[in-house]
């Protein structure tokens, strides 16, 4: 252990003891986007107001914002720990209920039974333990180990919980080759959707010559239905920062860039703050922990563009250009951002790295099945009871995910459709529920695990309507650089719209397949290559819905009667096209 780290750790432990075992109550409120969007900030204001009113000599409490415990359906979650007692979690707390909660939990020291979710780190008679609840018990939280437990604004809370131990271990006793070898041993594969072995990918960058080389961390995450990247950065940004530094050490890189979509205030501000604190503590910058290794990280923001999540488009966006993919080769490891060797990793991939180094590659590879090592971070949304973000060992079946983790389909309905891996991932039918969550098994079943989003649709959903929505998304988000994608998506949308409104023609399905083949063969990036997946998979599993539309001119569930959103791309006005003679019109 380096002396610098030892000093940090002592200070962090001392502060953590005061918070977690001190004489004051500790109230944690989930303030990731899932909590904030249903009033968590208002709950914090109400708590602070109530604590001020309720005679401070009787209640001494600290209120901390924390990240996402993953149980989004129960947000806003308020977690109250009295001195010496267990943590008691309350669900769906509204500002109106805060006075009653403070009165019961903090003044009287009782449990407010109609809001209580469960206890952690201890038992209370008559209250369930969180570990008895399926959405909690079935999880193996590695990347999310701190999410919802620590304040993401405070790097010392991360350090007190084992944070930066891996960096200290690597810098004080491991060569870059040993760090890379540990990642290779772990069997970790990229979690952005391609599942390429991370150790191999890092090897490409190691082989490129410096002095400036980049580790890029991709949190563009435009996939509707997936919010785990943003969830990690909002809940525990330091695990990603530490992962980036370790990746930099292993590959001999000098700089890191975290790439986030503009407008995602939570991830942006919390990551920015974590980076600033890491610099202050000597965990970033020159001569990290006195080891002689130097590394810098910055945040790069991008405008709204789904394709900017593609690795070469991402580099264009960092350089401030239109986020359109580049032709490969040259590959990023040779010529990347600003022309320098670069390596792009997803947020989730990097979030695992500190634990892989701390506990060893063997430990990580013991989790999961077959070639799918470690955990999957799943985002469940749509028609499902326990909407949330769960980290489970790979190999669990889709049925267990839906029924046990997700608590089943609400309102006594049956599941009809699962949309996995983002809009390009395609759909699955209920008879594929016995498929294990495993990269290869999911692909064999006809879908992809992708970034981990699973959207459930019950029997009221029409596959044609959902497919239309997915294709509208893909069409809107096509960057327009290559024509098979740009025109193919537009044609697909026209045809599916026709079918949806009952005007479909007999040869429409064949026509769509032909467009799909061209898009797959001729597009530059995954957006066009995979863009036919929603239609292909829908035709495989839900032909009956298409048949009813085509032959009977009606929608089997009636959902196609609703209106649709027809988004328009904002165009600049005519002034944009009349500037040829302007003084700044020529490059100066």
């Amino acid at each position, binding site marked *: 252990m380096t002396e610098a780290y030892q000093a940090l750790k002592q200070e962090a432990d001392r502060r953590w003891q005061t918070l977690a075992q001190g004489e004051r109550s500790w109230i944690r409120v989930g303030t990731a986007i899932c909590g904030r969007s249903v009033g968590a900030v208002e709950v914090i204001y109400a708590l602070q107001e109530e604590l001020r009113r309720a005679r401070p000599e009787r209640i001494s409490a600290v209120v901390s914002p924390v990240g996402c415990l993953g149980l989004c359906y129960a947000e806003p979650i308020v977690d109250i720990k009295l001195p010496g007692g267990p943590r008691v979690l309350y669900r769906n707390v509204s500002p109106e209920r805060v006075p009653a909660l403070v009165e019961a939990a903090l003044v009287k020291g009782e449990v407010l039974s109609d809001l209580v979710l469960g206890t952690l780190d201890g038992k209370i008679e008559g209250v369930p333990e969180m570990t008895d609840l399926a959405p909690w018990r079935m999880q193996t939280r590695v990347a999310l180990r701190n999410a919802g437990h620590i304040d993401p604004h405070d790097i010392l809370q991360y350090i007190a919980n084992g944070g930066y131990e891996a960096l200290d271990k690597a810098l004080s006793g491991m060569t870059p080759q040993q760090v890379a070898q540990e990642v290779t041993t772990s069997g970790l594969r990229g979690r952005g959707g391609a599942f390429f072995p991370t150790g191999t990918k890092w090897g490409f960058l190691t082989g490129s010559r410096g002095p400036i080389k980049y580790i890029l961390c991709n949190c563009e995450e435009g996939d509707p239905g997936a919010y785990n990247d943003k969830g990690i950065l909002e809940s525990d940004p330091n695990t990603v920062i530490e992962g980036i530094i370790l990746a930099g050490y292993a590959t001999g890189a000098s700089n890191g860039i975290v790439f986030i979509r503009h407008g*995602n205030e939570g991830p942006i501000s919390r990551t920015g703050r974590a980076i600033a604190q890491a610099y202050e503590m000597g965990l970033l910058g020159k001569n990290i922990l006195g080891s002689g290794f130097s590394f810098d990280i910055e945040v790069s923001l991008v*405008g709204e563009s789904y394709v900017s999540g593609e690795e070469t488009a991402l580099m264009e966006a960092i350089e401030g250009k239109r986020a359109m993919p580049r032709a490969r080769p040259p590959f990023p490891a040779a010529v990347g951002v600003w022309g320098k060797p670069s390596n792009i990793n997803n947020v989730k991939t990097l979030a695992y790295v500190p634990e892989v180094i701390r506990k060893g590659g063997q430990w990580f590879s013991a989790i999961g099945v077959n070639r799918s090592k470690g955990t999957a971070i799943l985002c469940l949304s749509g028609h499902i009871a326990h909407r949330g973000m769960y980290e489970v060992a790979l190999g669990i079946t889709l049925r267990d995910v839906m029924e046990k983790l997700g608590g089943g389909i609400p309102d006594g309905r049956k599941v009809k459709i699962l949309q996995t891996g983002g809009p390009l991932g395609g759909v699955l039918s209920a008879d594929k529920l016995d498929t294990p969550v495993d990269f290869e098994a999911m692909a064999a079943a006809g879908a992809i695990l992708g970034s981990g989003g699973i959207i459930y649709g019950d029997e009221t959903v029409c596959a044609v309507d959902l497919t239309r929505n997915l294709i509208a998304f893909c069409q809107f988000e096509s960057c327009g650089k290559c024509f098979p994608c740009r025109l193919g998506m537009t044609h697909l949308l026209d045809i599916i719209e026709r079918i949806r409104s009952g005007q479909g023609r007999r040869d429409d399905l064949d026509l769509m397949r032909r467009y799909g083949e061209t898009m797959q063969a001729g597009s530059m990036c995954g957006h066009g290559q995979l863009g036919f997946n929603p239609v292909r998979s829908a035709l495989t599993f839900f032909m009956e819905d298409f048949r009813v539309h085509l032959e009977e001119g009606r929608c089997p569930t009636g959902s196609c009667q609703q209106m649709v959103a027809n988004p328009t*791309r904002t165009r600049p006005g005519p002034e944009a096209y009349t500037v040829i003679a302007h003084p700044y019109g020529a490059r100066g």
Partner: protein
Amino acid sequence: MSTQDIATLRQRTQGALEAHRKAARTVTVLSCLLAAHDALGYLPQEAIEEVARSTDHTINDVWGVASFYTNFRFTSPGEHTVEVCWGPTCHLVGAMNVLQAVQEALGLQGEGETADGRISLKYNTCLGACSQAPVIRSDEHVLGGMTPARALALLASLRHKQT
């Protein structure tokens, strides 16, 4: 627009770009456009010109970047902006009912500004709170669990709120 207004737009853009240069490690056309858009709420021709000058790019280069990203707008927005998500999760759990109610209440057929210029309606493909779908963003606040009734109440409160 008066000469005075144009001068103000230029000044405000320059101020935003200066602040951005001080705060950022890396300055690009895109990062400048984001800073200008944050400050003005839209990108007028003057802002494009200032970004071109400040980054040493042509105006056409800058328009090229600006017109690519869907968050940029080129006309001044209403006092409040409401974004309705129509991504697949929101769509499945009732976003279209919310959107229909919002459009009817605002007297709009699609994206755009109300006749009195107070509220802008925009669509969004994902606001990142899928677990709380359907989702709306009202100015900078993301709000989950939307229903037509809650959306209408939100619009009513925006109409009464001063900026």
